[in-house]
């Protein structure tokens, strides 16, 4: 049992800090700290800086340009980036598709696609959910029919985050309907510029355009874009979903979010004292802080177990549930902390360069929208109900 970082790890931490200090543009960290909208260019700028340093693909082995970091290093990097207000790494290519290709892709696919992720040529998005296939993902119906060297794809995907920015989409498609629904699913890479791909924005409850519906009509996809074997996509999808879950737990973001919350709660007043000293609010904060401290250790335990080859299936689900609960509670307390100023919403105030006088405290503008937006955390990446199903399956053995 040793929870302390080794000297090497501490040195690594300093290295990351120095790097961030020297290379994270203040314009970006200011935007992230203020929770302003990030543009596609903002993300690309940060990705390029990390790629230059060789630190973009933290989940890839070195031979493909990844960092090959240990569990502890990845943890340190995530926390340092988050607390320095670096933009989050967009996960679709780097943390989701990349590992799938490295594990299940052909040599050719790896050589073609992985460098393009690293150098920013391709912005990926994810085509898993469908209107009729949410929690019941395996019931998906978007169909691909093989015709010679091509698949013809027809159907619909939904909840595609940042689909509006994407060049390429990795999809689960149905190639066989005859057996169990988990069988007959294939994992296909589709160029978003292909004829027959149409994108329709979905407006969320905070008014933002973040997710999309995507329609495929007779879209022709080279058969070379099939990952792994036809009809075996469910296996690859499950591997990807486990990675996604751990990402959504988001310990780094939680730590950064909690620190930001502490500042708000010190700044907000409850009569003649900071809100932080209000007994009820202080109790909420302390419970949250303890939950977070516990979750940090649970996270490290799960990562260490995964590093040793113990299957992290139930653990990653527990992390996803508790991690998202904590992140939601952080945004919920920020909203509560604002008091009456949780109500005004000037959407333009979330864009860079907006110079009007803020309504209420300067940090107030994005808080309620952020709270509302983060309701997604317990829904996407496999809803927290689905995570409970996974846990039960693992421990109950019925």
């Amino acid at each position, binding site marked *: 049992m040793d929870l302390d970082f080794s000297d090497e790890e501490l040195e690594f931490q300093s290295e990351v800090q120095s790097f961030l200090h020297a290379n994270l543009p203040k314009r970006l960290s200011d935007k992230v700290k203020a929770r302003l909208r990030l543009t596609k260019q903002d993300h690309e700028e940060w990705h390029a800086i990390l790629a230059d340093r060789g630190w973009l693909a933290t989940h890839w082995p070195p031979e493909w340009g990844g960092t090959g970091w240990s569990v502890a290093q990845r943890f340190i990097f995530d926390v340092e980036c988050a607390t320095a207000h670096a933009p989050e790494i967009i996960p679709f290519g780097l943390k989701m598709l990349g590992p799938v290709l490295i594990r299940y892709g052909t040599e050719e696919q790896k050589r073609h696609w992985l460098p393009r992720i690293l150098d920013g040529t391709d912005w990926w998005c994810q085509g898993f959910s469908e209107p009729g296939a949410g929690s019941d993902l395996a019931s998906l119906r978007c169909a691909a029919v093989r015709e010679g060297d091509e698949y013809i794809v027809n159907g619909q995907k939904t909840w595609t985050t940042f689909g509006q920015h994407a060049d390429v989409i990795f999809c689960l498609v149905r190639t066989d309907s005859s057996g169990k629904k988990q069988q007959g699913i294939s994992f296909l890479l589709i160029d978003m510029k292909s004829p027959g791909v149409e994108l329709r924005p979905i407006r*969320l409850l905070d008014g933002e355009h973040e997710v999309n519906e995507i329609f495929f009509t007779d879209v022709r996809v080279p058969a070379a874009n099939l990952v792994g074997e036809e009809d075996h996509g469910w296996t690859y999808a499950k591997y990807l979903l486990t990675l996604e879950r751990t990402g959504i737990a988001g310990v780094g973001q939680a730590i950064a979010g909690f620190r930001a919350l502490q500042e708000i709660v010190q700044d907000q007043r409850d009569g003649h004292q900071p809100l932080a000293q209000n007994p009820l609010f202080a109790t909420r904060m302390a419970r949250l802080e303890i939950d977070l401290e516990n979750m940090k250790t649970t996270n490290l335990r799960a990562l260490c177990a995964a590093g040793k080859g113990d299957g992290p299936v139930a653990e990653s689900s527990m992390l996803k549930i508790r991690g998202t609960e904590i992140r939601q509670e952080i945004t919920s307390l920020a909203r509560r902390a*604002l008091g*009456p100023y949780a109500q*005004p919403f000037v959407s333009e105030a979330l864009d860079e360069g907006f110079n009007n006088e803020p309504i209420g405290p300067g940090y107030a503008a994005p808080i*309620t929208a952020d709270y509302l937006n983060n*309701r997604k955390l317990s829904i996407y990446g496999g809803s927290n109900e689905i995570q409970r199903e996974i846990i039960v399956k693992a421990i109950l053995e019925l």
Partner: protein
Amino acid sequence: MDFSHPEDRQMLADTLGRYLADKYTFEDRARIAGSTQGWCREQWSSLAQLGIMGALFSEEAGGYCGGAFDIAVVFEQVGKTLAVEPLLGTLMAGHALEHAGNEHALIAEAIAGNAVLAFAFQEAASRYAPHLCDCAAKQAGEGWTITGAKAVTPQIEAADHIVVLARTASSPDAQGAAHSLFLVAADQAGVAINGYPMIDGGRGGELALNNANARLVGNRGDGLALAERAIAIGTLALSWEAIGVMDTIKVQTLEFLRTRTQFSVPIGKFQALQHRMATLALEIEQARSAAINAAAALEAERHTRERAVSAAKFTIGQVGTLVAEEAIQLHGGIGMTWELPLSHYAKRLLMIGHQLGDEDYHLERFMAFSAAETSVETQAGAPA
């Protein structure tokens, strides 16, 4: 003991419900709530013609009802349709004027739909507490002028007259009184409103007063007592609005559970969701009981009234957050879309928690009243 409404009040509720269902559809509401004005004068006139504003005030004040349960049924209907019209400000300001015993002509104008009122008490640093009021009034000849700022007042741009809480003494006198209530005409030099959209629809604004002319409402030094009463009535109204919102969310969520299919069955067949839905239904009934208790106590002495009002708003705040978050979760991704009415009901329910005190504020207030033996009518603010 009887939990049904008398016939005339039931008729009022039905009339309003029918009107809103017909003429204030979800599409109408979305248009009005997102408009640059943030409310609709034509709707306001129609509501006045239906007698809705009259139902909020007593016969003495020119209305025809004005009891706690009359206010309750009106705001319950408002909640069912998410109407954004400036009823709350008109109710609170009007009751302050009614209770102070002057300005009956203005109440009559409000009842007729010719005047919109707002009630501005909170300030940037006051959070929800009325006594943390630094807006200053000073005597100027026969009248008064006020200088200072008020924060996040709903539909204040719509208001023709604003009832403002202001400081009339630098420190409390022997009776603890340092504040008075004033009536300020919106259309004058010295009144500046910085309006903005609210995240749940409609608009609010920041009020800046710079030597604005004002008329004293009631007696000097009565400000906090009058404000407390107006806030109690506003809190009651919001609680019942929340009941209307929650009932609607319940209906919408039950319908979704019946019709949304996953794993080849309606998701309402999943026991884990069923049990959570049962809990929501149970909590909503508890919230309704809390709102009934507050209405029943509105005419009781201060201690009983304020305790029940804070118990209700605490319950509404707690249950409201649960209902909003659970309803979204039970809907899944679809519950997060702008397109679905549900998300707007959920937002409104959450934001009711940020009006006139959230669950923590009212729980503390309930505890303070529980601990305090005193129930002196003149001592305003939380008793501890």
